[in-house]
């Protein structure tokens, strides 16, 4: 069979043992790969109720069946784990070159459990597996960790996924970083830190094999043409996500001052055209023609000398809207700092945004912040907070817990200022301005994630089955949300980048052709089969959480979103009709009114094994 390497590496950090396993044929057929493998392996391997920071939690690192192939934009990697931030199932996605390198080492996946007695990193080179001493790397940031491992192993082309000080200090939203791209969300870096695992270094040259090489080459060429000829491609490949602040501010849904406003005054300073003026060059993940990334260098003013690879839209928002200041240089400085220290910029922004509002309300004071003035417009204080979070110093120790835990620890009525779903901080979209997008944020098993059910129809005006969509309407949003979520789940079986996937617009046929010609599995050629697997994956993710005690009570929006209106802009006066939307969504999914998949739905999806006898 082509595509797969047919090999999983199991690593036990407690016993310091490696074990190779083959892929199960049923796993391949029923779950395809990527996100499908991740949820099935995690569902099978983790007992309910385990401590996310304990030895029984697993980190499942995966490359997709098309990673390291000649096809464009299938080379990202995913990591799956029980999240210390949400207490539930989590998936996080990283880019750069690590995913394709994993395949080139001859592996489809690495599954890591246990806790190492001493700091270690893993060195994996085509069938050779080593635990290596990471004592000398302890405390180093992600940039230096990459550099020193490459120096130690005398190979500048080694690909590394690592944690920074935030992961070592078990910041609940620490990410896993590889060449300045990261699997940022959900606290995978904290899980790595709890396991005393600093990094995983890879090097491989094993070639990709295809079931039908000529067919794959043809399908790959068609895929390139589809992207290249899309009318949106020239601009997106030039600007990446740095243009998105124009959309969300114009639509009045750019969360500002902890979701109290929908437009940031002066946001034009953060438009894509402004970033283009200070751009040094474009960057891309392995074999990706989207090249959404860019190296930005600030040459003058307060932030002169600061640079980063990015920031992308979420980080631009994170260090502007929540703290009420539109300062391009600040977003660049914060982006690089978070990348170096190993912090998810979105959750950090959520915690910092909440802290600014708590400060304004007098619920925390200068004595709590160590003298920092958390007043709107003071961007330098946000930079200080990132450092305090990563090292758990001062008030940073509180912010490092995430907004849900912050509210619990602080009490004093602060719960109303904690903007999250299931413990995961909101991204850069106000749900009141896009109801299907908000419904997805509210219902996703991983919490408020923007990538797993993005409502292109509402935010970018694309059509749903040929139909224009009113972003404020409640009607039909359960159906659209399910469609968006299942679509992403289907495309993530191949860990297809969501940006490239956006060009499919729901037409999975080209992806199906690539999968079939690579693997030779006949069912993969059928677009309808991919949709079914997408829905199967989504339901199994929900079931993981149901087993942990999640239900409707966890699919909940903060009161600010459901009861307060935005004061100005193109989304002014809107609230989020959570209960109506949720009832419709559960019905569309074939779940009961508690948010639990029915036995009939589970049988239909081939998930009967999850039903208790």
């Amino acid at each position, binding site marked *: 069979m082509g595509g797969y390497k047919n090999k999983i590496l199991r690593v036990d950090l407690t016993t310091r043992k490696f074990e190779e396993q083959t892929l199960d044929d049923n796993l391949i057929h029923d779950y395809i790969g990527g996100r499908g493998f991740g949820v099935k392996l995690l569902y099978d391997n983790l007992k309910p109720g385990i401590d996310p920071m304990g030895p029984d939690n697993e980190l499942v690192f995966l490359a997709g069946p098309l990673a390291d192939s000649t096809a464009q934009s299938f080379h990202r990697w995913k990591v799956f784990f029980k999240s210390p931030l949400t207490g539930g199932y989590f998936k996080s996605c990283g880019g750069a070159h690590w995913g394709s390198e994993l395949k080139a080492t001859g592996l489809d996946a690495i599954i890591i459990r246990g806790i190492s007695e001493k700091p270690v990193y893993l060195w994996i080179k085509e069938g050779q597996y080593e635990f290596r001493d990471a004592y000398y790397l302890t405390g180093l940031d992600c940039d230096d960790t990459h550099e020193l491992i490459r120096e130690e192993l005398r190979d500048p082309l080694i690909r590394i996924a690592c944690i920074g000080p935030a992961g070592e200090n078990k910041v609940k939203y620490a990410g896993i970083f590889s060449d300045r791209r990261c699997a940022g969300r959900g606290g995978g870096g904290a899980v790595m830190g709890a396991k005393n695992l600093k990094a995983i270094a890879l090097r491989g040259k094993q070639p990709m094999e295809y079931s039908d090489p000529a067919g794959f080459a043809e399908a790959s060429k068609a895929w390139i043409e589809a992207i290249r000829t899309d009318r949106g491609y020239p601009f997106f490949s030039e600007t990446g996500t740095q*243009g998105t602040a*124009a959309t969300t501010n114009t639509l009045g849904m750019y969360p500002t001052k902890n979701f109290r406003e929908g437009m940031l005054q002066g946001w034009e300073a953060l438009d894509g055209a402004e970033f283009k003026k200070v751009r040094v060059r474009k960057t891309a993940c392995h074999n990706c023609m989207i090249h959404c990334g860019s190296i930005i260098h600030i040459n003058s003013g307060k932030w002169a000398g600061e640079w980063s690879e990015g920031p992308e839209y979420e980080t631009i928002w994170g260090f502007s809207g929540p703290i009420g200041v539109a300062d391009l240089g600040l977003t660049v400085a914060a982006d690089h700092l978070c990348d170096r220290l190993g912090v998810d910029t979105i959750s950090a922004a959520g915690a910092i945004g909440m802290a600014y509002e708590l400060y304004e309300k007098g619920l925390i004071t200068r004595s709590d912040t160590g003298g920092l003035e958390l007043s709107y417009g003071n961007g330098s204080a946000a930079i200080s907070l990132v450092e305090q979070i990563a090292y758990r110093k001062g008030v940073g120790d509180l912010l490092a817990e995430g907004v849900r835990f912050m509210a619990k620890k602080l009490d004093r009525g602060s719960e109303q200022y904690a903007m999250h779903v299931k413990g995961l901080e909101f991204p850069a979209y106000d749900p009141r301005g896009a109801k299907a997008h908000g419904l997805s944020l509210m219902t996703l098993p991983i919490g408020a994630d923007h990538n797993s059910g993005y409502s292109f129809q509402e935010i970018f005006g694309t059509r749903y089955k040929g139909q224009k969509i009113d972003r404020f309407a409640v009607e039909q949003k359960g159906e659209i949300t399910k469609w968006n979520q299942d679509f992403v789940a289907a495309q993530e079986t191949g860990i297809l980048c969501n940006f490239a996937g956006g060009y499919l617009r729901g037409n999975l046929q080209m992806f199906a052709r690539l999968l079939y010609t690579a693997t030779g599995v006949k069912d993969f050629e059928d677009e309808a089969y991919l949709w079914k697997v997408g829905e199967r994956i989504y339901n199994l993710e929900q079931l993981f959480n149901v087993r942990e005690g999640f239900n409707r009570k966890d699919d909940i929006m903060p009161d600010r979103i459901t009861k307060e209106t935005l004061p100005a802009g193109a989304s002014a006066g809107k609230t989020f009709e959570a209960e109506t939307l949720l009832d419709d969504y559960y019905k569309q999914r074939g779940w009961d009114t508690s948010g639990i998949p029915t036995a009939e739905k589970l049988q239909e999806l081939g998930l009967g094994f999850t039903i208790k006898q």
Partner: protein
Amino acid sequence: MKVEAVFFAQLREMVGVRQKHVELPAGARVRDLVDLLARQHGDNFRDEIKNLEGTRILIGDREYFPDEVMDTRLKDGDQVVFLPPIFGG
């Protein structure tokens, strides 16, 4: 009358500025504004608005798809925003 046209993304690159003030005869419609801009910046401007799926036009805080708003009359002082889709965030 005078209206303010605002451009984002590829339309901004096409026009070369983020915003411009445009003189139109009283009673002019959105279509007249688009025609004027196409004369000034090339037919590609009209083509992008017509064919780039997802492009929206905002007048004040109200948003429309292009085919819904072409016959809408403008009034002095209106701000007309041309917002193409950007695809990603």
